[in-house]
């Protein structure tokens, strides 16, 4: 969707920016406070591609866009020069937040990463290509070309805290500039040298500062900005107005910075030490388990920065005995598994943007750079992460049992496989080509298990309606006398429809639905009494007194069938939830037709009462009309 042009169209048709007092947005709608609502061209707006519907209620001119309303909002605000506000909660779609605290945490991290994903995806791809060039000796890793390109591709990762700080500031509602300055401090060159070279570091002579590495880190800055937002709000509240302007950022930085480096950041460093102790112990107890455990938990370690506890073990092994089975193999299968999971999402997703992101991120993940796929796909949907952990675990187990070791260092991924070829020293120790063969097999196993698991899980999650953009298929039940929504979407009163024939009730009483997807399912059991040859209207005779008409779109008969794909025919007996019709929403809207779908009881006069029962978001499990015979 072209957000800019949509925003321009919307702004133009609400009467121009002069007619707008203010505009805010919620989870799915733009909400305008207009000076004169009459000036707005509701008809034009309703038919605009990208607009699901228009509601003028409660003094607010609301334009329903869908989940990408934040992007449209940004453009509207930019075009009109309005004051930008944070999203407000949507009173019409209150849903119980049943997610576990862990899910909320993971999803919170994923949402902080969202704005950063394009940068790390692009940089990741560059990094991967560069690594490829080095492997095939197209570029010399001592050359200036390599140094320049390496810096270019690594900057997004090195300075990750700064990139994340801006996003964190938006989420925790504090000043973005101060947050980024805090992050900049964590990666300030002389501070980094100090932490690296000094024996012990203290602040003010007594406060111990942990020697941690903050470049490429994630958790320290999230914690830091979160804490800083409280400092900021506190100072804002109690500071005298005259000095507020410079005192707020002053205290935010000072207190935020000190607390971050003395308490918050070191949490990660302390956890890394624990990790190191654990794996050293495990290696002595059951060495074959190490790649298995690493294979499973590697993504979590990388996310929390605690993999820094693990990596030194590997580096040390390589330096002393020349081979390593602790870090290399486990991370190799984990990374490739993550990439494979991302690819599985790319294959199954129907959203072109998701497909693009998941395939490019999945590819770079397989090659060894996992940040894009981890934060952009796997963490976002969570189930790919589980799939990757399963794949990594199985692959790791295989590598552990076969005793695969690596003989050199490199970003774990397909490109690092050459380091599994035994060197001369390794051959002297008894390693053979089988090491390399098993390494490849382990990777294949990990990727296959991960891909297949993710592929299957995608279907399960989609059916449960947990994936944005994938509407859950309804449960088919027999003998259910209730009338459910034939289309998932938003239910509105019939009298809001522009067409008088429907809005007046001439076609019968009922309700209208603004579709979320182009699929019509049987609202209840019955027989198809009419299926217009043009495919846009379906008549169902239920066994128990009601005749239901589902009419997709307004005047869509004029499309003469284009964009409609009937799945059943006249005379067919259908059960509730059965797919009756598929229609191309985008095409229909592009031809200038509204897709709002009235669902009416054509024999209203024969019944005692017909009552619309839903408003707002409906799924195929929502009862929409109540009948009394």
């Amino acid at each position, binding site marked *: 969707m072209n957000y800019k042009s949509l925003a321009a169209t919307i702004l133009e048709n609400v009467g121009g920016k002069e007619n707008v007092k203010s505009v805010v947005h919620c989870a799915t709608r733009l909400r305008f406070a207009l000076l004169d609502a009459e000036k707005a061209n509701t008809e034009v707006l309703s038919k605009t591609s990208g607009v699901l519907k228009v509601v003028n209620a409660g003094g607010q001119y609301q334009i329903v866009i869908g989940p990408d309303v934040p992007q449209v909002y940004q453009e509207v605000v930019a075009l009109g020069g309005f004051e930008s506000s944070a999203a407000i909660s949507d009173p019409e779609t209150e849903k119980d937040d049943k997610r576990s605290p862990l899910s909320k945490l993971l999803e919170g991290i994923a949402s902080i990463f969202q704005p950063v994903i394009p940068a790390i995806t692009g940089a990741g791809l560059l990094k991967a290509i560069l690594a490829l060039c080095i492997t095939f000796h197209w570029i010399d890793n001592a050359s200036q070309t390599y140094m320049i390109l390496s810096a270019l591709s690594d900057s997004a990762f090195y300075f990750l805290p700064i990139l994340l700080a801006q996003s964190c500031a938006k989420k925790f509602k504090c000043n973005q500039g101060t947050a980024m300055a805090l992050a900049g401090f964590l990666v300030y060159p002389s501070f980094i040298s100090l932490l690296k070279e000094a024996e012990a570091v203290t602040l003010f002579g007594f406060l111990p500062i942990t020697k941690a590495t903050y470049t490429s880190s994630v958790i320290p800055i999230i914690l830091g900005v979160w804490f800083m937002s409280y400092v900021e709000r506190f100072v804002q509240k109690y500071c005298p107005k005259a000095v507020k302007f410079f005192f707020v950022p002053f205290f935010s930085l000072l207190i935020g910075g000190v607390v971050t480096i003395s308490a918050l950041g070191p949490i990660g460093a302390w956890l890394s030490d624990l990790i190191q102790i654990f794996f050293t112990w495990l290696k002595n107890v059951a060495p074959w388990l190490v790649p298995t455990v690493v294979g499973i938990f590697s993504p979590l370690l990388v996310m929390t920065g605690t993999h820094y506890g693990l990596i030194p073990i590997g580096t040390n092994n390589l330096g002393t005995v020349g081979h390593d089975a602790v870090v290399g193999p486990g991370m190799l299968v984990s990374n490739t598994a993550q990439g494979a999971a991302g690819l599985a999402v790319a294959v199954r997703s129907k959203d072109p943007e998701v497909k693009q992101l998941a395939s490019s991120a999945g590819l770079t993940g397989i090659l060894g750079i996992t940040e894009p796929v981890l934060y952009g796909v796997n963490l976002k949907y969570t189930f790919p992460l589980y799939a990757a952990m399963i794949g990594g675990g199985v692959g790791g187990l295989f590598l552990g049992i076969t005793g695969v070791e690596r003989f050199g260092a490199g970003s774990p991924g397909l490109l690092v496989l050459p380091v599994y070829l035994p060197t001369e020293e390794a051959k002297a120790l008894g390693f053979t080509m089988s090491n390399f063969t098993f390494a490849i097999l382990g990777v294949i196993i990990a990727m296959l298990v991960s891909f297949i698991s993710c592929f299957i899980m995608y279907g399960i999650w989609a059916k449960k309606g947990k994936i944005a953009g994938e509407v859950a298929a309804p449960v088919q039940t027999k003998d259910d006398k209730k009338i459910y929504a034939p289309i998932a979407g938003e239910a509105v009163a019939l009298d809001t429809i522009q067409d008088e*024939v429907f809005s007046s009730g001439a076609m019968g009483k009922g309700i209208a639905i603004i579709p979320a997807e182009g699929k019509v399912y049987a609202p209840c059991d019955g027989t198809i009494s009419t299926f217009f040859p043009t495919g846009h209207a379906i*008549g169902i005779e239920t066994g128990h007194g009601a005749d239901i*008409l589902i009419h997709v779109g307004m005047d869509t008969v004029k499309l003469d069938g284009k964009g409609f794909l009937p799945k059943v025919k006249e005379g067919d007996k259908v059960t509730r939830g059965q797919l009756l019709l598929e229609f191309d929403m985008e095409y229909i809207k592009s031809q200038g037709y509204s897709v709002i779908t009235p669902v009416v009881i054509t024999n209203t006069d024969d019944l005692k009462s017909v009552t619309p029962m839903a408003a707002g978001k409906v799924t195929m499990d929502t009862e929409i009309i109540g009948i009394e015979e």
Partner: protein
Amino acid sequence: MKTFEYTIKDEVGIHARPAGLLVKKAKEFTSVIKVTKGEKSAEATKLMALMSLGVKSGETVTVSVEGADEDNAAAEMEKFFQENL
């Protein structure tokens, strides 16, 4: 009983919109109004039945009106068909 024949001019035939208007109109009268296409017949006040007839452009229907106000009703119905279908 009064009857008249009418050939549908509207290129889309009797689709939802005109059917709805037809039903609305037919309900104004006390007479029983039937629309027949070939073998099939439907009461003009039953929307679903009307649409099930599947009357397309160029097809001819016979409209029968029987009741106390049949003279007025037939004239009005014929006028309706001419104006809308």
